[in-house]
């Protein structure tokens, strides 16, 4: 059987054999006008991407497939399995790449032992009757210097000659139909249940690849002689086609004028779109009790894929009529198919956690934000210390999974009230000697323990802490006493323990909007901006998440947030508009 995609741009096209995608390999594929980097992640997912790093255009096929990410060979930019989103830029270890910095991806399916993609918008999946419900074995792909149409005509014509070489001299070839989709059926006399289907992959205007698939049941119990036969038969056919003058050799000078030749890459369409206010619907695919007062939720996409996230990232869960609540992703770098979060039941607060615990069911849909990252993980430290208290384990665990994946040394300390309060215990214990569980320590003992941990750190050790605010304050205090540079201690607050003072009135000047607004007593900058229809993204609205931070061009901000670092606060270049005020009469903001 011979099957040809009439208009290559509108169909699924086979671009590789499944067996080409061996573990940790990146396969170079090609369609007219498009080079492809094709790789299989350790979870089996087949990624088909534009073969080009977003940064300096280096082919990703010379990069490294680490099982969960593809890493560019030039500057080590990492792109995540499934989404193709950039997860790490080594030149700036402290920054978190925008979640929309995403490589161009193409859809992939595996069928009949071949890997298929399409440049069109979801055409119907190929269904070839002779191949359905049979064992299929792909032939060795044979590339030919001739157009798809030429190869197709020659295949039809020359397929009969396979008899002359073949093990089945009495075989017949039946041409089933012709037209844009050509179909031939070949029945082997000796192997009555075997048939052969040819697909042609266009590579260029004048290059194609013949991808044959044998199908049958008993006939393929011993496929090797057949594979050998067709391997040499197709080679011979290629030689015929190429020596018959059917190949067009172009003047290399003029190659850049050929329409099939790639001259300019396709720009990724979505990398500049700001996602901060965009919401996403997901389904609760799993809900399980994780520890005392903690449930774990797995959130799966309803349509398409979830945006990529980096270790330390969080999402907002938005329930109707309630303030958004922030939850860190527990995902490791390989886990891109769903988001995993841990939710502690909080009796105080906006009620999101109580709703999740009491009302939310497996299968329900919820609205979440794109992942945001105020707690990025550097991967340039020789040593990293991770300290988690209670539910603060969630971002810390994601970091540990990442460090472990890229083989960087780390030690994880996890402080919990009791064994029963230990969320994600099995995932933590997977780190074996790198993980230390501290159960049921008093406040004083916790401090002693933290002191001891920090004393062992050398000046190059990066320290990440997440937990309840008193614990974060304590770690910061202890590290200061020990003379550890503030740059090395990274914290994330989920709530702001400060009492917010909205007492002083002042003005803000919006330099880019050319507006002056009065901020009265009792109202935040953010509220006044929103009342005046000025779009500033916001989330927790209590100075913890950092979503509403804007640039200060002039003036003296009075910081009441916990999202900016001490250094950032001293510099006075940024302000969290949801809580912070001004000690000058006027603040000039870059919005």
């Amino acid at each position, binding site marked *: 059987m011979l099957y040809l995609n009439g208009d290559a741009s509108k169909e699924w096209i086979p671009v590789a054999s499944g067996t080409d995608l061996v573990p940790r390999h990146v396969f170079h594929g090609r369609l007219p006008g498009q080079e492809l980097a094709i790789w299989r992640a350790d979870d089996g997912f087949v990624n088909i991407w534009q073969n080009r790093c977003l*940064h300096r255009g280096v082919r990703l096929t010379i990069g490294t497939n680490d099982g969960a990410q593809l890493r560019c060979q030039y500057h080590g930019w990492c792109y995540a399995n499934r989404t193709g989103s950039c997860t790490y830029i080594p030149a700036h270890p402290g920054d978190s790449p925008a979640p929309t910095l995403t490589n161009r991806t193409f859809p992939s399916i595996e069928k009949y032992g071949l890997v298929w993609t399409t440049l069109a918008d979801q055409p119907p999946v190929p269904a070839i009757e002779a191949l359905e419900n049979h064992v299929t074995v792909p032939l060795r792909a044979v590339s030919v210097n001739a157009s798809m149409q030429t190869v197709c005509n020659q295949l039809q014509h020359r397929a009969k000659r396979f008899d002359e070489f073949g093990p089945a001299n009495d075989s017949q070839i039946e041409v089933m139909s012709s037209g844009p989709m050509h179909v031939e059926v070949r029945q082997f006399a000796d192997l009555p249940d075997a048939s052969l289907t040819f697909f042609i992959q266009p590579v260029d205007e004048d290059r194609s690849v013949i991808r044959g698939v044998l199908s049958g049941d008993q006939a393929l119990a011993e496929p090797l002689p057949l594979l050998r036969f067709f391997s040499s038969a197709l080679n011979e056919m290629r030689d015929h086609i190429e020596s018959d003058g059917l190949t067009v050799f172009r003047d290399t000078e003029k190659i850049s004028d050929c329409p099939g030749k790639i001259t300019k890459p396709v720009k990724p369409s979505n990398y500049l779109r700001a996602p901060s206010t965009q919401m996403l619907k997901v389904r609760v695919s799993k809900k399980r009790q994780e520890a005392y007062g903690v449930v774990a939720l797995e959130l799966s996409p309803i349509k398409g894929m979830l945006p990529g996230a980096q270790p330390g990232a969080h999402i907002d869960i938005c329930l109707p009529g309630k303030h958004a609540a922030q939850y860190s992703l527990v995902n490791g770098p390989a886990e891109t198919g769903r988001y995993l979060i841990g939710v502690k039941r909080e009796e105080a607060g906006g009620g999101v956690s109580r709703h999740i615990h009491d009302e939310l069911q497996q299968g329900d849909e919820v609205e979440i934000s794109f992942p945001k990252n105020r707690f990025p993980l550097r991967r340039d430290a020789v040593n990293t210390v991770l300290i988690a208290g209670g539910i603060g384990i969630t971002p810390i665990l994601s970091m540990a999974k990442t460090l472990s994946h890229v083989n960087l040394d780390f030690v994880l300390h996890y402080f919990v009230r009791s064994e029963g309060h230990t969320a994600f215990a099995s995932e933590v214990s997977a780190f074996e000697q790198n993980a230390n569980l501290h159960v049921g320590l008093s406040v004083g003992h916790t401090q002693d323990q933290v002191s001891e941990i920090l004393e062992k750190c050398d000046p190059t050790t990066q320290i990440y802490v997440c937990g309840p605010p008193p614990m974060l304050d304590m770690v910061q205090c202890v590290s200061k006493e020990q003379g550890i540079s503030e740059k090395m201690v990274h914290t994330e607050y989920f709530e702001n323990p400060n009492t917010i003072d909205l007492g002083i009135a002042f003005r803000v000047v919006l330099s880019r909007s050319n507006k002056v607004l009065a901020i009265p007593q009792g109202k935040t900058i953010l509220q006044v901006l929103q009342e005046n229809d000025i779009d500033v993204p916001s989330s927790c609205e209590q100075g913890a998440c950092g979503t509403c931070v804007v640039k200060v061009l002039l003036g003296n901000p009075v910081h009441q947030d916990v999202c900016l670092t001490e250094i950032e606060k001293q510099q006075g270049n940024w302000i969290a508009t949801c809580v912070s005020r001004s000690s000058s009469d006027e603040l000039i903001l870059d919005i």
Partner: protein
Amino acid sequence: MNSLEIAKSCSTYSCWHPLFALEDLEEGGVPVYTQLLDQAVLCERLSEGKVSVRLADQQRGPDRQAEDLHSQVQFGFVWACIGPNPQLLFDIPEYHEPDRRNVCTGVFGVEVSAPRAIENFLDMGHFPFVHTGLLGIEPHTEVVDYQVTVSDEPNEIVATECLFFQPQAAVGSVGGVVTEYVYRVPHPFCAILYKSCPFDESRRDVITIFVQPESEERIRAHTMMSIVDPESSDTSIRLFQQMIFGQDKPILENQFPKKLPLDPLDEISIRADRVAVAYRKWLASGGVRYGVIPGAQAT
């Protein structure tokens, strides 16, 4: 417009371009072919350090040198200009210091455009990934902010305070150090690097790349070092440089497109690329069309 027409309309037509290391030409030997800006040229070393360069298809009249292209010998290389009014060639003052060793470290043919090769020379971020164990090593991947200035007089780009952790910065280095670089781009297709000298803290070694654009997508990169190093042999200095360039070549040849895109939206730049961003702008504003894909505004 074809490549040759672009070459002729581009500001680089009146630049000096390197063709050969003088030491690679035999005095009084046969003229040697090479290609410059899509045209075949013949280069001949005459006696007393003089050279003659002409277009290969140029018929010679009775006065042998009347039809010659502008040529000169500088920094150990033969330079030529096809255009009628050559611009002044930049200087490297350090080259003339008496105690320096000036070593031609080899010419490398690369299937890439000239500005891609220059940009790679100006880039520190790739050290841990491409020159692993020599100019960089993981996890020390950070490129800290550095300064870039673009001046009119002389018309060049200078990047300073470029710091990078290097396990073996030069052939004479032992052990890892944070090396300081200064980059200078005095010519669209030539760049100079100054780096801390392992033998004399007060001085800096000079490494240069002079790119000969054979065509828009094929170059010969001529490299030279002018260093203070009383110990290493010329051969070991050359081998070190050739190893480094040998690591860059496969990366350069896998860049797509081969020409350098000047539209800022075509490739994502980060803070570490500050000098590359300045270089791209400088090429665009300097009327460089050869080996680049012009941005939307500069058609």
